[in-house]
């Protein structure tokens, strides 16, 4: 059957009729996608690469990409055709051929690819040059030893006037030599100013690159003392002095450096600001990252607005935003507190989103919103879903740990949980009560009594809940008579208990023994006997320890009391975090909480940032503030309040921006006509 098919396809492929060829190729593609191995067609398909029809070519490329690794020798034979296609008169074919050729993952071909890109980097057609930029990074992935020659071509492409080429070369830059910031200095301004006009995917790359660049090249706007938002001018003077302990420092020089870096930073932030309004979630997230990592704290409020917009978006996108918000809100809750409403849990949200929202809400807790949030958490704690219920209950206890005045209210709502009939509610409620009671200086015995009665009735079934009840009684009610009843029940069921509960029973009986030697002696003996012969090593060990403590008279009774019944230190439940705070936001590693292959740290702010002379173009623009340097520097140092500082900064920026617009317009005048002409020039014109 297969043979027959091969024969008929081959006949069609051999035919000189393009329609026949297409038909056969389409059939082969369909077979290929349904998992059939069609490598037997390879020689026949490769032949068709010489076809003049773009459609045929595209399908052949598709096929070759899939089977190239297997048929290396045959591929070498077709390389000639590829090279011919790369010089084809139709730019589209050139681009496609280049893309396909560099897509073949054969190290053998890397030098050939290099020759090909060297030629196409000078193509008249921007689209081809863009594909060339992409090809660079593919060749680099194939053979890293070619790095130097690739960078050479990259430098050439970075100078390109066309935006799509620039976007592509930024991508290549980021993959080939992200550390070579020296290559970017000259283009920094163009990238910053024109990033709004990039296509959305290039915007992403540009933003990532600028974030990295900014960290290395700019001063930290939030550093203590040096902070330009921090109103303490004394601090900054002190830091400046500290920079040069000999007091020979040239004040003006230092101020100059600081101011220049800040202004450059401002330019970046101002230009990127417009991207906050993008419709593409990934772009917005990237701008927010840039602001988060580079902007002074006073500008952080904009992040909140932009990010909260995507919380109500599609659930996957909303999920990735919420995870980032969670991390940001931990360190800077003030960004998101005004948008509290966005994080209220809706019943239609998937569980993961609900849980993330709750931990964000807990991060945002403060004096003014605690009353709203407490009610919200109370509602979540009665939810049908045990996981959500748990998060709610933990949230309530966390609330109390920050705001002790909510102790009573919290107690009340937890009590409502344990009086319900649902097992998971009782469990979560009991565990939380344990945490809560531990925090209060005077334990309300009525609750412990109530729990123990419930325990006696057998309505506390889950392991966690039993543990908590036994611990509470042993810790706070060891003197009471009814504690013995609890012990009785525990001993009666001992054999059927979980290992964890067994351990707790051992502790429990020991605590009672300390308080009341006579009445509990029998129980102690019995349980120790059982536990000594337990299968579990932990239980046997624990028995050994406790029996030597209690039965043997190694230490005095008072000391035993101290060991077992001293007040335990309080541990509050922490806000559960679903991400790792230290990893770079928005990355897969951040989401998975561990470093994934290819993860790159964000560089630290460099202490000696701001060599503005590197960005040649900028020197011109910076001249402006330098002339007014004297006035401004003194203004800055003397001003002790925020407002004045701001206005100083603003004046600076205004000075720059007028310069900006001028140079911008002149730049676009130069570049755009060239853009158009090259885009419109048809191949024939160029040939002639």
């Amino acid at each position: 059957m297969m043979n027959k098919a091969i024969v008929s396809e081959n006949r069609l492929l051999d035919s000189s009729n393009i329609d026949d060829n297409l038909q056969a190729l389409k059939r082969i593609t369909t077979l290929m996608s349904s998992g059939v191995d069609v490598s037997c067609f390879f020689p026949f398909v490769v032949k068709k690469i010489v076809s003049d029809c773009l459609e045929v070519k595209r399908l052949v490329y598709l096929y070759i990409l899939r089977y190239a690794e297997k048929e290396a020798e045959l591929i070498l034979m077709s390389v000639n055709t590829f090279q011919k296609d790369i010089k084809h008169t139709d730019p589209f074919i050139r681009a496609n051929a280049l893309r396909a050729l560099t897509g073949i993952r054969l190290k053998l071909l890397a030098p050939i690819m290099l020759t090909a890109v060297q030629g196409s980097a000078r193509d008249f057609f921007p689209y081809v040059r863009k594909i060339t930029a992409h090809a660079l990074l593919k060749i680099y992935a194939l053979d890293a030893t070619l790095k130097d020659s690739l960078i050479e071509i990259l430098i050439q492409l970075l100078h390109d006037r066309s935006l799509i080429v620039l976007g592509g070369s930024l991508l290549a830059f980021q993959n080939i030599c992200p550390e070579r910031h020296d290559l970017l200095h000259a283009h920094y301004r163009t990238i910053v100013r024109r990033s709004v006009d990039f296509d959305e995917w290039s915007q992403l790359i540009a933003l990532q690159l600028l974030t990295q660049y900014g960290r290395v090249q700019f001063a930290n706007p939030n550093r203590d003392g040096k902070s330009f938002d921090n109103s303490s001018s004394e601090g900054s003077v002190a830091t400046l002095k500290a920079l040069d302990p000999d007091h020979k420092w040239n004040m003006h020089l230092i101020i100059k450096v600081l101011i220049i870096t800040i202004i450059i930073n401002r330019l970046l932030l101002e230009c990127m600001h417009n991207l906050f309004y993008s419709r593409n979630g990934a772009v917005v997230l990237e701008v927010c990252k840039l602001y988060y990592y580079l902007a002074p704290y006073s500008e952080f409020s904009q992040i909140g607005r932009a990010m909260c917009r995507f919380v109500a978006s599609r659930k996957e996108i909303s999920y990735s935003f919420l995870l980032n918000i969670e991390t940001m809100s931990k360190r800077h809750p003030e960004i998101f507190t005004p948008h509290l409403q966005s994080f209220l849990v809706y019943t239609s949200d998937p569980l993961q989103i609900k849980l993330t929202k709750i931990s964000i809400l807990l991060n945002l807790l403060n004096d003014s919103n605690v009353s709203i949030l407490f009610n919200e958490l109370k509602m979540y704690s009665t939810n049908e879903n045990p996981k959500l219920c748990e998060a709610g209950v933990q949230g309530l206890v966390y609330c109390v740990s920050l705001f002790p005045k909510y102790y009573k209210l919290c107690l009340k709502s937890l009590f409502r949980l344990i009086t319900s009939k649902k097992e998971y509610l009782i469990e979560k409620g009991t565990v939380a009560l344990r945490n809560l009671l531990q925090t209060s200086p005077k334990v309300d015995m009525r609750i412990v009594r109530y729990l123990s009665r419930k325990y006696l009735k057998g309505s506390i079934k889950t392991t966690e809940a039993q543990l908590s009840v036994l611990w509470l009684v042993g810790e706070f009610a060891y003197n009471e008579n009814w504690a013995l009843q609890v012990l009785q029940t525990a001993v009666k069921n001992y054999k059927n208990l979980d290992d964890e509960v067994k351990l707790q029973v051992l502790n429990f009986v020991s605590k009672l023994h300390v308080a009341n030697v006579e009445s509990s002696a029998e129980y102690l003996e019995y349980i120790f006997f059982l536990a000594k012969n337990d299968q579990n090593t932990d239980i046997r060990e624990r028995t050994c320890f406790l029996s030597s403590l209690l039965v043997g008279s190694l230490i005095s009774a008072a000391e035993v009391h101290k060991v077992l019944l001293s007040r335990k230190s309080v541990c509050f439940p922490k806000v559960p975090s679903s991400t790792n705070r230290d990893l770079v936001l928005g990355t897969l590693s951040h989401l998975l909480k561990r470093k994934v292959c290819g993860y790159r740290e964000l560089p630290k702010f460099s202490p000696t940032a701001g060599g503005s002379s590197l960005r040649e173009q900028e020197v011109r623009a910076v001249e402006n503030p330098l002339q007014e340097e004297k006035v401004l520097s003194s203004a800055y140092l003397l001003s002790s309040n925020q407002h004045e500082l701001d206005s100083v900064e603003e004046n600076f920026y205004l000075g720059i921006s007028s310069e900006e617009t001028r140079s911008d317009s002149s730049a676009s005048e130069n570049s755009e006509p060239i853009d158009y002409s090259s885009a419109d020039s048809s191949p024939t014109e160029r040939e002639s």
Partner: protein
Amino acid sequence: MSLSALFILDINGTALISRDYRGDINKEVIDNFLPLITRHEETGTSAPVLHHNGTTFAYVKFNNLYIIGTIKRNANIALIFTFIYKFIEIATQYFSKLEEESIRDNFVVLYELLDEIMDFGYPQTTEPKILQTYIFQESYKLKKMTSVPAVVTNVVSWRPEGIRYRRNELFIDVVESVNLSVNAKGSVVSNEVAGCVKMKVHLSGMPQLRLGLSDKILLAINSQDAGSLEDVKFHQCVQLSRIFEKNIYFIPPDGDFELMSYRMNTDIKPLIAIQTKVVHSSSSRIEYAVKATAQFKSSSTASNVEVTLPVCQDVDSPVFRSSSGAASYVPEECAVVWKIKYFPGGSEVALNAQFRLSSIRSEEKREKTPIKYMKVIEKSNYKALTWVRYTTQNGEYLVSFN
């Protein structure tokens, strides 16, 4: 920050499409996906990103299809989801509906598309309108496409040149929905209007459009006050550098697209106020009384109001008494759906049911006019007809109870 491969699976986990972009992933890994997701669903920990044995799956479930991006190296996760949704958008434009059947019918085009929109794991041209100019469902010959590639390199990447319409028309749809959340005490916790401006453009040439916005939207754009939740996002075609002016300028893509979307915090009172009371009549019976009041003018009416009351899974033998509309129990959604066909303003309707409830959603009509005028500027100065329509869709109403 890149995708290793893109897979499309049907609901049974059979791969319909697989496109390997980087060659760093084994094709067999996708066989792990379905067991993985089933396991997570059982334990209730399913998340849009799953990790297994060094490979990460970021997936979107759409029309009984799983569209999965596999990732081997550190990647930008928001980019991957944005890309997957973009792919869905493109495929929907091409095949009118992305589903198993349309994929099986269009293998070849899909592969061509996948080849074009992503290269080595990095997104490329993803504008459906542009792609349609050089990837066709029907086969074509080389000679037909001499001027096509210019589009890809255009500054205006979303609109091909040389579009001609005999009748130049422009439709603007303003669709708004109200989202409201009320806490157990009956006070409004959040209240916002989410709206979007959709356009259908049938205009010739390269028209530059100017859209005048009402002051309220302008305020939202210009407000630097972090406290307001109001915000706007625009389609790629809008000149972002000029949005601080009174108008927005743009060259629209051809056909349907969403120009902008916005959210506004408003202090409007809920159009339909819901009150509920829970009565534990006995240990086996719980009675819920729901009262809905229409708080709008008596001259207007709401039609097709639907109130959904989620209830516990273990309820049975429902008994309903309602003063208006019909209520029914939908066991598969664990909810009671109460439909009111005709709900005049100022009136009050009530329902008695036997369930616990935590959320209510409803649909109704509202009126608002964020657009002042629309101006079309094109070199040839043709006359264009502009149609504006306002609709309000159902938003999310959430009312909580103790």
